[in-house]
């Protein structure tokens, strides 16, 4: 039972990444590799600051700002520099590896005996793993509500239109480059924020913690979509959160089968690949009709 609570907590904390990636992957409609750099960037920024005695809430906020800068650079390379988005993201991701080492001064920093956003007496009194459930729930609720509000504003609608049809957006006066840069900044800011929170939850920041992040974030988006089908935009954000929790539960089940945590990246990739192919597989194998036949009685 406690493992399930832990999975839900992790799912809620990591949902920040899924919701953040949704802004670029689904709304702007491109894969942004920057996140593999901005996630550890946020983690190393926050952890280094906390290790130097700075307030953990302030450190987490600064991580968000540093993340937006990573997004800004990718956005400028893509829109003004005309570098393909995939490559622009990879460039910033690669560069941030060095930046992260500069920030941390070593390959990893521990938060042992340091205060973090999980250190408050109230959270410490909760049963085991319930602190991450509580913090995760509060954070993802605030972020999701803020995004729901933002996407319904005039700028939010212009942002959606940019990803939907850039030619049309420009023809009615929307500055699409600006919208793209804004989306990348917001997305990477949230990813870095997520990195800061998750590093504090883990108790350390590591130079390699960005590897496979995009796969995990994508998995929550895709699992949410496969599980719930056609939804409105606001509902889709909630589906990502549920997808993130489902993904953690799948991982838990796989670990129970006897796989080790070393296999997690392989398993993550397989889970995502299967989830992405599921709609096609369903059609190819006629799974729907097989299932229907199985449950409807013959007349």
């Amino acid at each position, binding site marked *: 039972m406690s493992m399930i609570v832990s999975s839900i907590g992790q799912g809620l904390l990591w949902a920040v990444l899924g919701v953040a990636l949704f802004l670029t992957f689904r709304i702007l409609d491109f894969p942004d590799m920057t996140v593999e750099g901005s996630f550890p960037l946020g983690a190393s920024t926050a952890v280094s600051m906390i290790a130097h005695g700075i307030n953990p809430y302030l450190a987490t906020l600064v991580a968000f700002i540093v993340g937006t800068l990573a997004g800004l650079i990718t956005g400028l390379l893509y829109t003004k520099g005309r570098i393909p988005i995939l490559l622009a993201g990879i460039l910033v991701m690669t560069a941030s590896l060095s930046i992260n080492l500069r920030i941390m001064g070593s390959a990893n920093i521990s938060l042992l005996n340091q205060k973090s956003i999980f250190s408050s007496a109230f959270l410490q009194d909760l049963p085991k793993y319930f602190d991450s459930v509580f913090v995760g729930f509060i954070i993802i609720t605030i972020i999701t509500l803020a995004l729901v509000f933002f996407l*319904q504003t*005039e*700028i939010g*609608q212009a942002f*959606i239109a940019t990803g*939907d049809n850039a030619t049309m*957006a*420009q023809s009615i*006066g929307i500055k699409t480059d600006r919208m793209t840069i804004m989306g990348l900044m917001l997305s990477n800011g949230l990813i870095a924020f997520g990195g800061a929170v998750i590093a504090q939850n883990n108790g350390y920041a590591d130079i390699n913690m960005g590897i496979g992040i995009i796969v995990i974030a994508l998995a929550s988006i895709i699992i949410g979509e496969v599980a719930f089908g056609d939804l409105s935009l606001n509902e889709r954000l909630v589906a990502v959160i549920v997808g993130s929790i489902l993904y953690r539960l799948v991982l838990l089940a796989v670990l129970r089968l006897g796989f080790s945590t070393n296999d997690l990246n392989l398993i993550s990739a397989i889970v995502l690949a299967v989830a992405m192919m599921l709609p096609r597989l369903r059609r190819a194998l006629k799974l729907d009709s097989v299932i229907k036949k199985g449950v409807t009685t013959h007349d």
Partner: protein
Amino acid sequence: MTEPVFSLKNIVVTVGDNVQILKSLNLDIFEGDFITVLGTNGAGKSTLFNTIAGNLHIDSGQLLHHGRNISNEAAVTRTNYIARVFQDPKMGTAPRMTVAENLLLAEKRGQKRTLRSRGLTKEKLATYANITQVMGNNLDTRLQTATGDLSGGQRQALSFLMATRVKPELLLLDEHTAALDPKTSEQLMLATNEQVTTNNLTALMITHNLSDALKYGNRLIILNAGTIVLDVRNDEKSALTEEQILKYFIA
């Protein structure tokens, strides 16, 4: 005569290996002009539109807006006073957004977009039901439908409404009925004519349909090899026949 709204002076536009698409083109566009634009493929009609809209660089000459040189103004800035309907129904609307959302977006053309709520109120929906009903293709019953699920004719009707939601100083219609079936095409052409004349819009309309070119508008120009070879208005235009027009195409 009054001062033109737009004035093209000796415009030269080249592409690729110094191929001149527009060769010292001159054109004055006056308020209330509804100009049909004819010409063979490669005559420079689309280039003319892209030049006015700001998507193509002008090599020499000047494009004036109320006497102000806008040759170097960015395309996105020119959308403050120029609106456009494309030939491809897919290009003019955001497919995953609803009809009402698309209209809302278009309503902000030329204004600053802020963090205020987009304001899709009941009153707005009622207004939209009214203006879409005019198009006569059931668009008014599909305000909450994603535009990707509309027919080509409905999408083009929506694109047209979006372009005219905020009255532009110049409306560019780039063969906007060409991708539609004959009946839908005629319906949209009639609606276009109705809107342009009642709202006294200034418009340029490219068409390959000679009878449409003669029937609609109060001015007609023919482009050939990058220059205007015929420019007639009102009575002179009414007196034209399809046979006479075809002669200009041969040169």
